[in-house]
């Protein structure tokens, strides 16, 4: 192995310019894979963090009731005895809007070890009126302590204090977008109307989740106050559940559905469309950037094929002095491996450096989340992905020339060289 490695190294250095091109291509390819994955994964993680912070890992809503129908088989003909069966058919599920007996459900859900917090929410469509404007909005009646445990609401407050909301039933908390539309300031009063009845509240705080659809419509108030406003003395619209490991939301949601007979939607299910979009961009970026590696692989294939053609006599003499076909193949595979290793080291360094620089690049994004700079994710898997892509390409690029070199018959080469 050491001998074949030293032969590989010498052959490689004899073609250092061509190999340097392949090495550069691999380094750039790997570096860009790392960078694009860091950015796309960074934004995806930030989006997930935003939606978990706003809507929690699981939302339990709507009681479902299975409608099982038994269909009896027809009686046997002519009074003859025959098998008597009935088939139980599960028809469509019937959904009853909202959570029935929320306290019982909360008690049941709390027993699941993965669950870290539960918040009961009463929601209703309202109109909100400031001194100058009126907007449609949604009231979210919450128990402040419970909701802070299942969301990032505490961190999302940009003006005012959550303690006002906790202490006063007349206090409401508005999203920044809604506040801008209503042109109101902290401490202003607003009139919230539901089913023809209006109640006046004081704006105690403004929050910003970063999700425009939330920040423009949600009004948080105390749970008991929302029951009065929305005339819902019992029940809840949904339960917001947080988990110790949000990645396990789909399986925990299934357990909750079985236990509570309520529909439970994990964040992965709720945000399926956006998550698909992010995945699409990650794959697209990986494929696009991989072309750099593929082109480098082609260059390496050419160089190695050229070395094989130029070194036929050397291959013949190595075979004649006892080097096996595997030794010869290894010599060429090792040349690829040496370039790969150097390319990976440079590529990883380049990727990390670019990620570091990009992290501080200013960019303003509003809509599905809010950020003022590029969000990146530092994850070993991006480096592994870049490494695997490069390794596969180099292995293929080296394997064909190596196989050709190993198959050479020394007698034919020597006979040809001597003529």
């Amino acid at each position: 192995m050491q001998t074949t490695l030293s032969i590989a190294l010498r052959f490689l250095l004899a073609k250092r310019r061509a190999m340097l091109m392949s090495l550069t291509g691999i380094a750039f390819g790997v570096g860009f894979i790392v960078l694009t994955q860091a950015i796309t994964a960074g934004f995806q993680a930030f989006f997930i963090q935003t939606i978990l912070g706003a809507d929690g890992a699981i939302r339990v809503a709507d009681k479902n009731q299975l409608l099982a129908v038994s269909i009896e088989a027809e009686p046997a003909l002519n009074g003859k005895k025959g098998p008597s069966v009935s088939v139980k058919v599960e028809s469509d599920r019937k959904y009853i809007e909202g959570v029935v007996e929320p306290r019982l459900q909360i008690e049941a859900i709390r027993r699941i070890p993965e669950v870290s917090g539960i918040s009961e929410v009463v929601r209703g469509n309202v109109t909100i009126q400031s001194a100058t404007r009126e907007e449609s909005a949604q009231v979210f009646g919450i128990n402040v302590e419970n909701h802070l445990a299942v969301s990032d609401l505490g961190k999302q407050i940009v003006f005012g204090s959550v303690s006002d909301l906790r202490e006063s039933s007349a206090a409401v908390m508005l999203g920044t977008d809604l506040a801008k539309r209503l042109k109101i300031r902290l401490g202003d009063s607003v009139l919230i109307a539901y089913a023809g009845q209006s109640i006046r509240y004081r704006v105690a705080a403004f929050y910003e989740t970063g999700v425009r659809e939330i920040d423009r419509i949600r009004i948080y108030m105390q749970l008991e106050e929302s029951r009065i406003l929305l005339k819902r003395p019992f029940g809840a619209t949904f339960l917001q559940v947080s988990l110790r490991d949000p990645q396990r939301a789909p399986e925990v949601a299934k357990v909750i559905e079985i236990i509570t007979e309520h529909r439970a939607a994990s964040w992965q299910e709720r945000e399926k469309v956006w998550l698909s979009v992010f995945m699409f961009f990650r794959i697209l970026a990986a494929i696009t950037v991989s072309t750099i590696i593929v082109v480098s692989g082609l260059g390496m294939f050419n160089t190695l094929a050229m070395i094989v053609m130029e070194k036929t006599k050397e291959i013949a003499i190595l075979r004649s002095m006892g080097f096996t076909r595997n030794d010869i193949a290894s010599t060429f595979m090792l040349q690829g491996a040496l370039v790969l290793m150097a390319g990976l080291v440079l590529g990883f360094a380049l990727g990390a450096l670019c990620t570091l620089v990009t992290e501080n690049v200013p960019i303003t994004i509003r809509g599905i989340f809010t950020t003022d700079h590029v969000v990146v994710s530092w994850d070993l898997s991006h480096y592994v992905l870049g490494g695997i892509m490069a390794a596969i390409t180099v292995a293929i690029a080296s394997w064909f020339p190596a196989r050709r070199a190993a198959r050479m018959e020394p007698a034919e080469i020597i006979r040809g060289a001597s003529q």
Partner: protein
Amino acid sequence: MSTDQKILPNGSSDNVAIRCQKLTRYLGEGEGRVHVLREVTFEATRGTVTAIVGPSGCGKSTLLYLLGLLDRPEGGEIWIGGRNLAQADDALRTAVRNEHIGFVFQFHFLLAEFTALENIMLPMKKLGRLTRSAMQERALKLLDAVGLGAKSHRLATQLSGGEQQRVAIARALANQPSIILADEPTGNLDVKNSAIVFDLLTRLAKENGQAIVLVTHNPEIANKCDSVRPMRDGVFVGKEIS
């Protein structure tokens, strides 16, 4: 792999380093197929130099490549160290080449990226019997023996044609093989270098009791050998000249 001296078939003595029987070889395909070797039988004993002479295309080199296990015959046997290796698997043939056969070709075929010393050490490294320092010591001894001790660290490309061929001889002797096969070893050298190379090859091989089989067109070289086997149209002709 060890190939102890054993009695070879047909009453050959253990002094025989290599023996072939009824070797048959065709080259080419279809209408261009040529019967190059026609049931050739040959043996080479230790400590002797045998020259195979004959016109171009008579099958000398083909026979040499078959004896050196670089090629496979269509028929016949090749006995080295008590084994018939004519149709042995590639791994065994390669191992036998490494341990028992040294080649010297018309062109030196040195690895240009390696120094003279490193070129000689390559077969030793493959065999893996000696330590690195022992390999280096032996390679230096061989270089001294071929008169190139002072140029051991020169790249192959920094040596003259004659010097390169001398390095190739040293490389062929590196693993102390029992058989040296030389295909026109002086064919690419001037008269002076030819004489030096031939004398070196035969002296070193005889000192070690190796069998040398030499293919040559040069009558002066052939006349210096212990025996000469003329060849024509794929068979040995006439009597062995001693």
